[in-house]
């Protein structure tokens, strides 16, 4: 076992710890949005570190691993954004501890403006 393999294995271990924390967060969080936070976010560093460690262990496929990291960095935020946007759009109930929701206020104002315009004509 070479030193670089041990380092790689250690980095992969740290990554899996982050993935575990993300899963715990998925169970403990109260509503959809905070679950997206815990589920997809604590796991970004987890996935990146796991892949990076694998790249160190198998140096001959490091290029493909790098490509995987780039694709995860591109697709991960898009998917969690779309989930959150759809959830907000259909009006999923938010947790009671939610402090402020400016998007709902904004949407309500816009709807009021739209309904008022035809009446003004």
């Amino acid at each position, binding site marked *: 076992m070479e030193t670089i393999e041990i380092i790689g294995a250690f980095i992969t271990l740290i990554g899996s710890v982050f993935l575990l924390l993300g899963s715990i967060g998925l169970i403990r969080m109260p509503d959809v949005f905070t679950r997206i936070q815990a589920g997809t*976010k*604590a796991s970004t560093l987890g996935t990146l570190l796991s892949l990076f460690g694998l790249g160190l262990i198998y140096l001959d496929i490091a*290029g493909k691993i790098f490509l995987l990291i780039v694709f995860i960095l591109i697709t991960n935020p898009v998917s969690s*954004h779309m989930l959150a946007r759809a959830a907000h759009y259909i009006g999923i109930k938010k947790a009671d501890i939610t*402090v*402020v929701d400016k*998007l709902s206020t904004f949407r309500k104002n816009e709807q009021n403006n739209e309904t008022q315009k035809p009446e003004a004509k």
Partner: protein
Amino acid sequence: MKIKSFIISIITLFVIWVLLNHRLTPEVFISGAVVAFAVGLIFCNSCDIFNDLKLTPKAFFYSFLYILVFLRELVKSNFDVAKRVISPKLPINPGIVEVKTKLKSKLGRMILTNSITLTPGTFTVELLDDRIFIHWIDVKSENIEEDTNMIVRKFEKYLEVIYG
């Protein structure tokens, strides 16, 4: 200036092809170059997404700085969210806040919102022109200006130089 977008697309496709093959023999090089050119020609006829990219040395330097800043934020906020998850009281204070961006280009805004989403603790719910609605796990203030300073500014000052 469509030609710039076209060339950047071809180079991106070619680099992905070479990384997937993981070697650079003549047949890989030639087939990759031909296919990348053909795909670029067919699908990048009217794409203008890369036109906002500035290719000056300063922009390259700031791209490098941006990656460093982004990685630092990623690690910092990952530890923050992990700490919240394992503490017994679950100290969260969630809410959706509004911030404003100064960036004009589409690509710059896309990278900004994706960076915000990738850093744990904040993610973008909606982007309407220059208003970004962000779900924040620990709302510190409801003022637009203060939120913009706390969430957006650290990324924006680098992206401003790169994308204008």
